[in-house]
């Protein structure tokens, strides 16, 4: 019998976001279905609803006509639904066989585990997959690709496996490893499993999937047949408009001034020595894979992590930042990547968040804050940055992600910085807000600020920056003028070499 997975009116809310909005569609056994959408479109949230990590606020889903309610991923796995995540979820100190049969190792009636039998059973699966590994090898001695295979085998080893989902499985795999992963996916498909494949990479989606379900801002848009649909049309559906236009229409700053910031061999415990310069009115993009050290350089520069080596010059003068506070006083502000934990102060209001860096300016000698000055600053911020909030006194967590982010940028800009560092400023925010951010960034550059833009979205870096620095393995691996950059060039500069 062919398996059918049906989502019926699934909705899920988080503070400030409607993460899933009335999702309805079906997935069928024996085909590979891609989930396509921008960051924050709801793909991962839907997977987490599917495997019992999240409880939906409304709606239900049916597997072969049967309504399912899982309280935990463990329960989902036992019922035949497995999700393979980017982050490995296996125990490195255990063997391949022990990981595959974790919690259900074959044992005799006294509960003594029969390792030989487990190894035998695991060996059969390994042969099925055609892998050159031994069931008794410790997982930590395997390459990342094989560790991922162990996870897949773990799901595969359950007789009742019906649904298997892959969340960005190829992020850290080489081409050869991707080939063997796809062979396994083909095998699962041939066995009639429902395979869900989440990825941003169009070429992979083309290669391995039969259909593509497209998501946008928490809503399900449509399912299309991969082979019959043009790539551009898919992107248009997932973005809602032609993104190329947004960048082309931007009114970028054309007058780039003198050197503003000079960073010489700056390193910390988390990044190797890095040097670069930033000019007045310039938007300097930082590209590279997640974990390449982009955030870490910035944290060292502003003193969020202790700087181990190197020097920083601002307008020709040497500055030393022991803390973000000193950096701010010197005119360098960071808008951090992790909005939830490092950006917003969740218990304060919109006004409180905008004003938090300016308390000194807003208070008298005794430290008493002027409510009037704060109200004015908050009103200005809300107006200038078009922050959508019912009132300045609303808790910041009640706003949408994009509006929260605007508050954080407003907070930073209110301190009148010379250098503004934006770390993944548009991560997880909707397209409308994104284009507002793009306009803002151009406006900052025109005002003579130096803007550093860290972004993992290549079109964004290429569309906004004047110059792009690429980082790889905690070092700068290259620099390129934005007008000469292509996605392929940036990717090849930023890709990690194989380590076996």
């Amino acid at each position, binding site marked *: 019998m062919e398996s059918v997975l049906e989502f019926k009116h699934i909705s899920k*809310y*988080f*503070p*400030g*976001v*409607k993460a899933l*909005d009335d999702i309805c569609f079906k997935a069928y056994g024996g085909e590979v279905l891609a989930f396509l959408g921008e960051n924050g479109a709801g793909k991962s949230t839907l997977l987490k609803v599917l495997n019992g990590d999240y409880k939906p*606020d409304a709606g239900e889903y049916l597997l072969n006509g049967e309504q399912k309610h899982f309280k935990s991923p463990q329960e989902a796995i036992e019922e035949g639904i497995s999700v393979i995540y980017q982050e490995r979820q296996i125990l490195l100190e255990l063997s391949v066989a022990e990981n595959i049969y974790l919690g259900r190792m074959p044992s005799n009636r006294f509960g003594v585990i029969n390792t030989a039998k487990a190894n035998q059973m695991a060996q059969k699966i390994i042969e099925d997959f055609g892998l050159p590994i031994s069931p008794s090898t410790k997982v930590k001695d395997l390459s990342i690709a094989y560790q991922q295979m162990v996870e897949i085998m773990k799901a595969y080893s359950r007789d009742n496996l019906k649904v298997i989902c892959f969340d960005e499985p190829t992020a850290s795999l080489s081409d050869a490893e991707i080939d063997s992963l796809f062979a396994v996916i083909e095998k699962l498909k041939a066995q009639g499993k429902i395979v869900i494949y989440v990825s941003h990479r169009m070429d992979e989606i083309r290669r391995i999937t039969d259909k593509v379900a497209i998501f946008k801002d928490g809503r399900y848009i449509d399912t299309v047949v991969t082979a019959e649909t043009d790539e551009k049309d898919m992107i248009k559906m997932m973005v809602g408009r032609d993104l190329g236009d947004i960048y082309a229409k931007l009114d970028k700053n054309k007058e780039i001034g003198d050197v503003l910031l000079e960073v010489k061999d700056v390193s910390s415990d988390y990044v190797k020595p890095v040097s670069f310069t930033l000019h007045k009115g310039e938007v300097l993009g930082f590209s590279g894979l997640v974990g390449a050290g982009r955030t870490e350089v910035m944290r060292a520069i*502003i003193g*969020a992590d202790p700087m181990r080596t190197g020097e920083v010059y601002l307008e020709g003068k040497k500055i030393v930042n022991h*803390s*973000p*506070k000193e950096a*701010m*006083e010197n005119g360098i502000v*960071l808008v*951090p990547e992790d909005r939830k*934990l*490092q*950006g*917003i*102060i*969740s*218990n*304060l209001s919109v006004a*409180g968040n905008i004003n*938090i*860096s300016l*308390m*000194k300016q807003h*208070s008298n000698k*005794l*430290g*008493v*804050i002027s409510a009037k000055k704060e109200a004015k600053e908050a009103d200005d911020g809300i107006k200038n940055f078009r922050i959508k909030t*019912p009132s300045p006194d*609303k*808790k910041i*967590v*009640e*706003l*949408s992600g994009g509006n929260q982010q605007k508050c954080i940028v407003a*907070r930073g800009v209110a*301190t009148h910085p010379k250098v503004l560092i934006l770390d993944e400023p548009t991560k997880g925010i909707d397209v409308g807000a994104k284009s507002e951010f793009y306009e803002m960034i151009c406006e900052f550059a025109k005002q003579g600020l130096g803007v550093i833009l860290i972004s993992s979205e290549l079109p964004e870096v290429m569309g906004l920056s004047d110059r792009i620095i690429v980082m790889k393995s905690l070092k700068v691996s290259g620099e390129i003028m934005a007008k000469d950059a292509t996605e392929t060039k940036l990717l090849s500069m930023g890709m990690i070499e194989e380590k076996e």
Partner: protein
Amino acid sequence: MENTKKENVLKRFASAVGGNNLVLIGAIIVVFILFTAINPNYLTWTNFVNLLVAASLVGIVAVGHTYLIIAGQNDLSPGSLCAFCGVAVALFLQWGLPIPVAILLTLGCGVLCGLFNAWMVNCIKLEAFIATLVTQTMVRGFAQLICDGRPVAISNQSFIKIGTTRFLSIPVSVWITIIAFIVFGFILARTRFGRSIYAIGGSAEAARLAGLNPRRIVTVSFIIIGVLTALGGVVFAARMNAGQPSANVNLEFDAITAVILGGVSFAGGVGSMFGTVLGVLLIQAFGTGLIMVNVPSFWQSVAKGALLLAALTFDYIRKERREKELIAASKRNA
């Protein structure tokens, strides 16, 4: 028509005072009625003043706890520190030091204790709960050491007056706590330092990246509770005419219970000084009542534990409700 109007007035009043505070005021009234019904002597002016005097020590420590717990920290050392400072001030007076010098030296002990707590939390990165447990034990030991475990009598009559003088028929010890509530309540609500406390309690890392110095704020908060506790210890010694090394056990327990009852969240970032005032009154009204209706002391301890459990349960319910409201608000905005 008439009814809806009344409801609106009530609603406005409730939102001005705060829902939680209304519940507390109600609870205090219930406690008063209950104990008065059992023992009519409960509701007399003398007893009320005694209740305030007893509450003044818990209250002054609770002021410090309000700061610390909103900042996401805690302190288990005040009971020991209070006893230590009582003994210390008694010894200083015995040595013949002038009263102001003796008091200042004692407050200095409070500063040192606060610095030590802050050092453990900031530099060895200990959890405040564990770090201050260390201090609690060590300072209790020091309190016994410096007087060989025996109470130190105070004969300086002018000092003892601190414990007996009244102003507007209310003892000075109560006035000191009232002033502490007003001053530190104002600082918390209206100044940079107060705002910083809320900010680091909400998210220390976000506050740091926004240009605040969480370590300094934590250090100052620990010094504040140290000094306030030391002051409480001085006044307590004056009332008792002696420094008692084994006194004030569980002082921090009462203060923390009062603060949590008053609406400060253990998760940090939430609460107000007015809530703490009500929490202190409630816990003292309850404690005094238990004594006056002759509940055996072992049962009093059980009852106090139950009160803290109730406070924590309220804290949990409030947190759940806040989250639900947030989700509901997001639904409206979406």
